């Protein structure tokens, strides 16, 4: 059964925001395993998106560490601790700050296992708020895109509280570095206040569960066209798909949930059924994960397609501040809708 977003919103069962679900995942994993610890900037006040709120009270400053503004330093430190058997979780206030630590990510974290011939492994989770949210160009990167070309990293981009919790628990237990990228609009917090919205809220069961890294999910069943989207774009795509349902266009919405490993088979199986493919992502069009997926589908399933593969992504510009300009470049529902209709005319 697809995990229908509408269904989960209507449910009378427990509703959490994404950040609440993430904190629950962290607490459960920290209680389960003494080796798990959290470090990051301003964790005393919960960091920027309240990911660490309350953790200090429960686990103390030995396991919840407030760091200096030294991203390269504390990423390297977490790598060293992971090599010696610990399981660090690094909370980045903004995923955008990871670039000051990029040697540690790309050259150390992603490669030490490989170049040591398997002598070391690095279980390490990066909690990375991603995407544009009205803060200007340097706090608007779709950081997940940058990691796609780095062998050795796993990348999760959950869009719902249910997926966020289940994937996060798997990330903590994974023996590899996991870049856990959550869109800034999806946490359910704004300016260190909880700010719930329909997209940040959803059903999370009481009982424990895990979602394996690398398994996608069909968020809405459909017959006419396959739409692959993640993060904030998944919610915009679902809104469009639900509206089009009333107009006689049946869109199947596939959420890859992880970019590495990528559940390509799930997309192929959907395309075999619908014969049309649209890929929606917030990152820059050039070099995006959608470009790789388009190449993979073209290479493995082009015979099933009745129309060209299309992509909707942000054009190759930095993200501007003015709300008018930001909305002009970030894919919105109108653009997604118009490309779906173009493909249906094909």
């Amino acid at each position, binding site marked *: 059964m697809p995990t229908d977003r509408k269904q989960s919103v209507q449910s009378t069962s427990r509703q959490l925001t994404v950040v609440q679900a993430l904190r629950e995942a962290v607490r459960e994993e920290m209680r389960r395993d003494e080796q798990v610890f959290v470090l990051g900037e301003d964790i005393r006040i919960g960091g920027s998106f309240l990911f660490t709120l309350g953790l200090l009270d429960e686990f103390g400053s030995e396991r919840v560490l407030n760091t200096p503004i030294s991203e390269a330093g504390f990423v390297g430190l977490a790598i060293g601790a992971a090599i010696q058997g610990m399981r660090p979780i690094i909370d980045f206030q903004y995923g955008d700050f990871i670039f000051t630590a990029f040697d540690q990510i790309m050259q150390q974290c992603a490669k030490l*296992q490989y170049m*040591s011939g*398997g002598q070391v492994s690095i279980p390490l989770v990066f909690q990375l708020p991603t995407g544009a949210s009205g803060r200007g160009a340097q706090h608007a990167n779709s950081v997940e895109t940058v990691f796609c070309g780095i062998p050795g990293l796993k990348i999760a981009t959950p869009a719902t509280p249910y997926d966020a919790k289940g994937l996060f628990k798997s990330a903590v237990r994974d023996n590899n570095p996991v870049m856990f990228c959550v869109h800034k609009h999806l946490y359910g917090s704004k300016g260190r206040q909880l700010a719930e919205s329909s997209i940040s809220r959803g059903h999370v069961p009481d009982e424990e569960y895990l979602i394996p890294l690398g398994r996608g999910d069909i968020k809405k069943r459909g017959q006419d066209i396959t739409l692959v989207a993640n993060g904030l774009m998944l919610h915009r795509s679902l809104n469009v798909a639900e509206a089009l349902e009333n107009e006689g266009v049946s869109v199947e919405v596939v959420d890859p949930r992880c970019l590495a490993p990528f559940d390509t088979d799930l997309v192929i199986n959907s395309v075999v059924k619908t014969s049309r493919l649209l890929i929606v992502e917030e990152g820059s069009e050039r070099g995006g994960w959608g470009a790789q997926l388009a190449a993979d589908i073209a290479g493995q399933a082009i015979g099933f397609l009745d129309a060209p593969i299309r992509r909707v992504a942000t054009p190759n510009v930095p993200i501007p501040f003015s709300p008018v300009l930001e909305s002009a470049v970030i894919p919105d529902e109108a653009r997604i809708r118009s490309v779906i209709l173009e493909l249906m005319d094909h």
Partner: protein
Amino acid sequence: MRALTIRLPQVPDFAPLDAYDHDLLREIYRRMVLIRQFELKVNELFLQGVMPGTIHLSLGQEASAVGACLALEAGDVITLTHRGHGQALAKGVSADSLMAELFGKVTGCCRGKGGSLHVGDMSVGALPAIAIVGASSPIAAGMAFAFKRGETGQVALNFFGEGTANKGDWHEALNLAAIWKLPVIFLCENNLYGVSTHVTEVMAIDYVAERASAYGMPGSTIYGNDPIAVHEAVKSAADQARAGGGPALIECLTYRRGGHKRDDPGAYRPQEEVQAWLRTDPIPAYRERLLADSRFSLSAIEAIDAAVASTIDASVEFALASAAPTTESAWEHVYAD
């Protein structure tokens, strides 16, 4: 631009060896000679065109590697630099697995996937080398963090060169180690040159160790071609770290006998400086001190030289006889299970 100022060696009076254990003195000599002969052999194999890749030799810097590693316990860990063959041998990586790694063989310490720039063996506490200047310092601090948290009593030692002291990662690592009182020793092998750039051109202070006080940790500058002095300094820093005293910075003044890497003759170095430092070669100096000690005879020392020579010859035979990795193994170890 700052001018290059020639830095001549200042050789102190050596301490008498009477107070030191015979086996330790012997092992210091053996490992220094092992490194020297290993690297001379590697250089020869390169010149013959037999060995692939690139190499950065540590000829002349044997005393700091050996003095430091022999002051550590077996369970302690080190991080190595791009100039890491000597550090690896000093910590106990076998000559066989090291030579095989340089040849890219499957029997190498990293199964042929690391090469000269990434040698190491976790089973003897040598984290496969990190060849990016500065990057290993926070990682060493992180290993020390795990030791402190697990109350294991282990210490991490971070080898780096003086050029590293101008990198941001390094400064961040020193600060983190100091604020969290981590059991880590930052060991600078100051050989005066970052490739061709002299330390006096790129640092407005005289010594790297002066920077320690800015982070609230002890710093000392010692003559790094005396393995005994290095051993003393590291032993004392390790004792402090184990007792919860936090990190220390030790700067060992030394010199590369050759250039930066195999295709670099080091012609940018003033001859006056080169000649003065070449006369301070740590191995003959230490050998003389051993011979002045009644516990060591010439024949005993020559026996060590001969044993090392056969170890090196055997390592080359082992490496040449070893299989190359299977091509399938290029796809292994990208992700851990």
